[in-house]
């Protein structure tokens, strides 16, 4: 990239005015997930373990939907569109990346968050409370000792998610101080783009509906206790 002037990862590139960055499904998943994580934390600390379990099932639905939308959705939602190797991350840090959507560095954060929440949901599904009053929908598939361990790890693993949330918010503040408003992009779906970036290709609404139907179907199956509806 000799000859291209080095510039900061964003902010000082030529701008094109407000362009689409995030489609509606991506934004809805993002804010619903944020709300459900807060609700899950609140409900389990306020004697609403039943609500906590349903909140976890809703998170499961979101994760399945987002996973599918990452294959069949808009260009900025696609895993293949933003997951890059270490070379691309280094290039981004040197200011050589311009594009729309997650940067190669942000992609690592997305994957970490997605996997961390998936692990948390998985642990919750097979966990049971100390008194045996509440059980995750799949607890019957594992031994009692496994369910009890899953509960302990579920409690500990929340700290990993909390750490990622802190990192996420810190990164947003860091970019904000450098003039890049990421939060308003995630609300309106639009932002200033580098003129050299290829525009976002919008996914089809009916594909989103199919992805959601599949996500709801799988969640319903899990709620029933899985295999042929029960252990």
């Amino acid at each position: 990239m000799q000859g291209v002037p080095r510039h900061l990862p964003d902010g000082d590139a030529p701008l094109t005015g407000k362009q689409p960055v995030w489609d509606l499904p991506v934004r809805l998943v993002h804010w619903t997930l944020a709300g459900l994580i807060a609700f899950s934390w609140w409900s389990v600390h306020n004697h609403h373990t039943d609500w906590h379990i349903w909140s976890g099932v809703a998170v499961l639905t979101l994760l399945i939907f987002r996973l599918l939308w990452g294959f069949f959705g808009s260009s900025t939602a696609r895993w293949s569109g933003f997951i890059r190797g270490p070379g691309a991350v280094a290039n981004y840090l040197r200011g050589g990346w311009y594009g729309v959507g997650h940067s190669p560095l942000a992609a690592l954060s997305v994957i970490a968050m997605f996997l961390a929440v998936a692990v948390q949901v998985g642990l919750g599904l097979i966990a049971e409370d100390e008194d045996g009053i509440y059980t995750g929908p799949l607890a019957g598939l594992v031994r009692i000792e496994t369910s009890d361990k899953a509960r302990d790890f579920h409690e500990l693993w929340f700290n990993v998610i909390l750490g990622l949330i802190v990192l996420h918010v810190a990164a947003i503040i860091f970019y904000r101080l450098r003039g890049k408003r990421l939060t308003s992009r995630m609300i309106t779906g639009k932002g200033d783009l580098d003129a050299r970036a290829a525009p976002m290709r919008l996914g089809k609404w009916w594909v989103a509906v199919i992805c959601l139907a599949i996500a709801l179907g799988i969640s319903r199956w899990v709620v029933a206790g899985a295999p042929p509806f029960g252990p």
Partner: protein
Amino acid sequence: MRVSVLAAAAVVSVVGAGVAYAALPKDKALAIMHSRHEGMEKIGDTNKLLRRELTSSAPFAPAVKSGAATIFDLSKRASGWFPAGTGPEMGNTGAKPEIWQNQKDFQVKLRNFQAAAAAFNATAAAGDLNAAKARYSDLNGTCKACHDTYRMEMHH
């Protein structure tokens, strides 16, 4: 004669209870808290086994029967698990101080639990698994009703 003996016994037991209430020695209080903890833990472990049996496609009736009997037996002992002076001020416990502030409500909830444990045990002993499932669900409701208000996390 017989009446007066009974009356005397009643007076003695009331006075005895009063004395125990006034000054439960520390070692005795801690012993009660220990057996309460062990008993509650046993109820919880049995509950986990029962849930797995009753939600499986083919519940093992003898396991349900013995689990129900265990909880029924422990539920009767629970009457002696909460004397005044066995709260968090005495030692590490999952019992909230509200138990002794709302004694009337607590005792109602305790009796509900004992009645539900007895009803569940009756259906399990008779081998009626469908009825046992319904009574088990009632029993869980009584655990939850009490724990929501009177149980806190215990830090070992």
